[in-house]
């Protein structure tokens, strides 16, 4: 009796092992093929269309005061765009606030170009031809000017330290109807949703690879999406309340993730599914 059961258990174990091996084998080649797909997309990234529009917009006099962005200080001096994104978020004394790129662009739109705060923050995420987002085009242009530059977010300022700590807290904070935290999906290796691999953002390598490839042209939406959008959409998928555009919460998380990517060369606008 016992020996038959032992044999059956052994056989079941052997079958299970074969099943695991074949699934792993299948997953391996699937992963390779998807890597090939992503590689094939690299040449000819529609993000370039947003970059071109953003560059025009940067130089154009806009808003009620008809001023261009060429006086906007992104941290390296008025109008200096090259390398600016690699050092954001940062503390800006003139606003007395830690700001990421999108928040700083809104600041310049309001204080220099004369837009109302509401107008500057209206519809930041575009939807085809019916609703184009100026912010997305500007982000595409500004970030393209940091391509190849090593991420270098400084925590020297006490307010930056605060934001980083808050962001880290938020990363591990479980909430919403599903009790999810960012860490639920992004706190371990080898996690995926359907066929989408999830980066482990708690490792230096994972954080670097993830942060340096946003903004990105998202093929599934046919739109250029920014980091504010990425966080907003994560919150939506976690069934969290809406992450308000340019809120301190969004900047804190960005500070945490951007700083963790320090040392890696920025490589965006990228192209993703």
């Amino acid at each position, binding site marked *: 009796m016992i020996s038959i059961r032992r044999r059956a258990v052994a056989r079941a174990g052997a079958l299970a092992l074969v099943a695991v091996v074949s699934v792993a084998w299948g997953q391996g080649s*699937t992963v390779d*093929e*998807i890597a*090939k*797909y*992503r590689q*094939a*997309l690299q040449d000819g990234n529609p993000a370039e269309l947003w970059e071109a529009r953003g560059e025009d917009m940067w130089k154009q006099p806009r808003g009620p005061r008809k001023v261009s962005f060429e006086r906007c200080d992104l941290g390296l001096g008025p109008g200096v765009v090259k390398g600016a994104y690699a050092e954001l978020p940062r503390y800006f004394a003139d606003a007395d606030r830690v700001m990421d790129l999108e928040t700083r662009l809104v600041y310049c739109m309001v204080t220099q170009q004369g837009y109302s705060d509401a107008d500057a923050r209206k519809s930041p995420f575009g939807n085809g031809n019916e609703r184009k987002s100026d912010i997305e085009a500007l982000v595409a242009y500004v970030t393209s000017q940091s391509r190849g530059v090593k991420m270098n977010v400084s925590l020297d300022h006490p307010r930056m330290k605060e934001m980083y700590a808050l962001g880290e807290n938020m990363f591990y904070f479980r909430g919403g109807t599903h009790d999810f935290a960012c860490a639920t999906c992004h706190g371990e290796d080898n996690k995926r949703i*359907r*066929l*989408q691999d999830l980066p482990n953002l708690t490792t230096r390598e994972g954080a670097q690879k993830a942060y340096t490839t946003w903004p990105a042209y998202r*093929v*599934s939406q*046919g739109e250029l999406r920014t980091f504010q959008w990425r966080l907003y959409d994560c919150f939506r998928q976690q069934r969290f309340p809406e992450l308000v555009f340019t809120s301190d919460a969004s900047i804190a998380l960005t500070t945490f993730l951007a700083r963790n990517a320090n040392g890696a060369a920025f490589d965006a606008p990228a192209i993703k*599914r």
Partner: protein
Amino acid sequence: MNARRRKLLKQGGGVTLFALLAAAGWITPGEAAAAESWNKSAFDTHSMDETMKALGGSAPVPSKDITFFSTPDIAENGAVVPIGITSNVPKTESIAILIEKNPNMLAAVFDIPAGTDPSLSTRVKMGQSSNVYALVKADGKYYMASKEIKVTLGGCGG
């Protein structure tokens, strides 16, 4: 008779139905121009037979001289599937891309004038995993190669 129509008719031979419709104001001149150079029936077919009929050709012969390049086996998103085709069939005149399981099979047709490489790449939408055909017209005859591409997320709005 309105002035535009009079002018067109004065031009004599070569006034198409579309041009007349445009002159009568039933369609815009832009739409007329578009209709004349776009093979509507070919883009409305659901099988290789129907497509070949609309293109005015006979059944294509499989050919090893037609190859895919930079074309992955699996597309992470069917909205954007890169397809590269090279034809080494002598006297290639045109290359077309057909997607078997799409609502309409024909995705694109490229006329290759002399001096242009019979090799190009573009990106297409695939509604589901399907065979993709590279259809080549060479010296008046039709040839083809096919490749199966798996899609993990539909590309037609899902």
